[in-house]
């Protein structure tokens, strides 16, 4: 067999192999998901705010929700104890005892909304209304000196909040830096 023919045969074999690997025939048992189903399940909020629900809240209302739902675990004004501290810690990240809080560490404000809504309060997650989640988020951002007490947090304003530690993360996974 001449070299060119051998190469052609090998290439054809390689392409056939690729095609086989790319279209493995499965039993195709997935059931179509309806838009309503997807809307009910899709609770994740990325930094651009896509998927943030209607509603809004301010720190003043958030203080009330916080006192009732959050303070027992996270302390007065987010000071921590018995569980995670949520406020302060600015300037401690290079010290021997860094304090990683929403204010000192978290890079995205949308993550606060996403996490509080999906996971908190710890004993009864997903019991706060969207308005209450906006309000608690506003309160925690205000306690950290990131927004004013009267700033309204909603689907428009929350993604625009720039977190103080935003630029101090280095991506180790290369695809993310594209």
């Amino acid at each position, binding site marked *: 067999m001449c070299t060119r023919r051998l190469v052609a045969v090998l290439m054809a074999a390689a392409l056939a192999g690729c095609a086989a690997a790319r279209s493995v025939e*499965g039993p195709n048992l997935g059931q179509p998901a309806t838009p309503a189903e997807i809307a009910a399940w899709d609770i994740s909020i990325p930094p651009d705010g896509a998927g943030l629900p209607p509603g809004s809240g301010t720190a003043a209302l958030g203080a009330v929700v916080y006192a009732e739902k959050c303070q027992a675990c996270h302390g007065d004004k987010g000071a921590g104890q018995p569980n995670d501290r949520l406020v302060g810690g600015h300037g401690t990240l290079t010290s021997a005892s860094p304090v990683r809080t929403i204010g000192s560490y*978290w890079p995205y404000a949308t993550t606060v909304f996403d996490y509080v809504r999906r996971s908190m309060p710890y004993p009864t997650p997903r019991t706060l209304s969207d308005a209450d989640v906006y309000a608690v988020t506003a309160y925690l951002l205000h306690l950290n000196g990131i927004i004013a007490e009267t700033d309204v947090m909603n689907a428009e304003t929350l993604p625009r909040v720039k977190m103080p530690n935003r630029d101090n993360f280095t991506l180790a996974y290369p695809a993310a830096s594209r």
Partner: protein
Amino acid sequence: MGKRSDVSVPDLEAAGNGLLDRRIFLKQGALLSAGGLVAAAGGAARAADPPGAPGPGAGMSDYGGPAPYESKVKRTLIRSQAGTTGSGASRTPLEMLEGTLTPSGLHFERHHSGVPDIDPATHRVLIHGMVKRPLTFTVDALSRYPMVSRVHFLECSGNSASMYGAAPPAFTCGQIHGLVSGSEWTGVPLRMLLEEAGIDPRAPWLLAEGADAAAMSRSIPVAKAMDDALLALYQNGERLRPENGYPVRLFLPGYEGNMSVKWLRRIKVTATPTMTKDETSRYTDLQADGKALMFTYPMDVKSAITRPSPGLRMPGAGLYEVSGLAWSGAGTVSRVEISADGGRTWADAALSAPVLPRALTRFRAAWKWNGAPAVLKSRATDSTGATQPERDKLIALHGSNVIFHYNAIQAWSVSADGEVKNVYA
């Protein structure tokens, strides 16, 4: 620990302070069996009945458990956040186990809001986002897909975090390094399900979300999902244990454990990472300069000697087998070296087959302990050429606030009375 009688083997010395070529065990084994034969032939009258049951023993059982004499072999250092019982971790007692497969009931746990009780008859997995056909899959449906079985370790990125502390923790091997376990995982390649849903070939990310109370979620590169990710249904031959994600979990070989989202209920294919709490504020690696590394996925090459190790007293000078585990999320363990003189000289340990990629690998070496104080170390290298650093080098590079991805060389000191301790040396 197998202590044997004094043997003179200067020709088999492999490194300083008594590390021997492991063939010593083979040679000596042959000698011992010859001696045993002679003794047996010399025996005359029956002195006493051999040990054995005086009558029929216990009956069959529908699900066996360990021998009652092994009741102290349990998960260790179980800690949960204040006021909670399921927001923390439990660790594998590595020093009490051998081989490379961790019994499922001793696999480490790390939960963010407890172990949910999920009925497989009603559980579903939704795949949506940048796909042509959003689909849901029941557990029964997933069980009908062609499956693959792979042996892999799973390691929490916070494994060994106590070793970043200023003083060496007075812990056992499992209490320090026991957030790693090894299993055979069986399930459906995620790629097949993403292709069935018609994944957008340009989509770089997906979000994986659990059905636990925390709805724990992580962004996963599609490249990994299409390469070797599984939706695992079985662990060590049986359905997943509840604490390991029953009825279905994501499994990402070699990646930090929390990305292998348990109790999987949703996969959303996305254009960008979602930047969830656990990939921003939690599992990011704070460096000494105050910057943090994000998306540090593969667990680095690592090893620890499990025997001898703290809590396992050495009963006197003599010949011992040094046994331990090595692993790498980047590939296959290619070499493990052992030192008995604190890292001055090193000898290659034997790697017990099978040596599999991204799997726990058992290593063994022979050590003739002379009864004097000594420091044992193990140093693993993987197929990418990466080698474990000494602890001071790791901390000089990254600082001691990192919490995660600790993979430095472990040192155990042995005192003259046979006590083994965790030391920085």
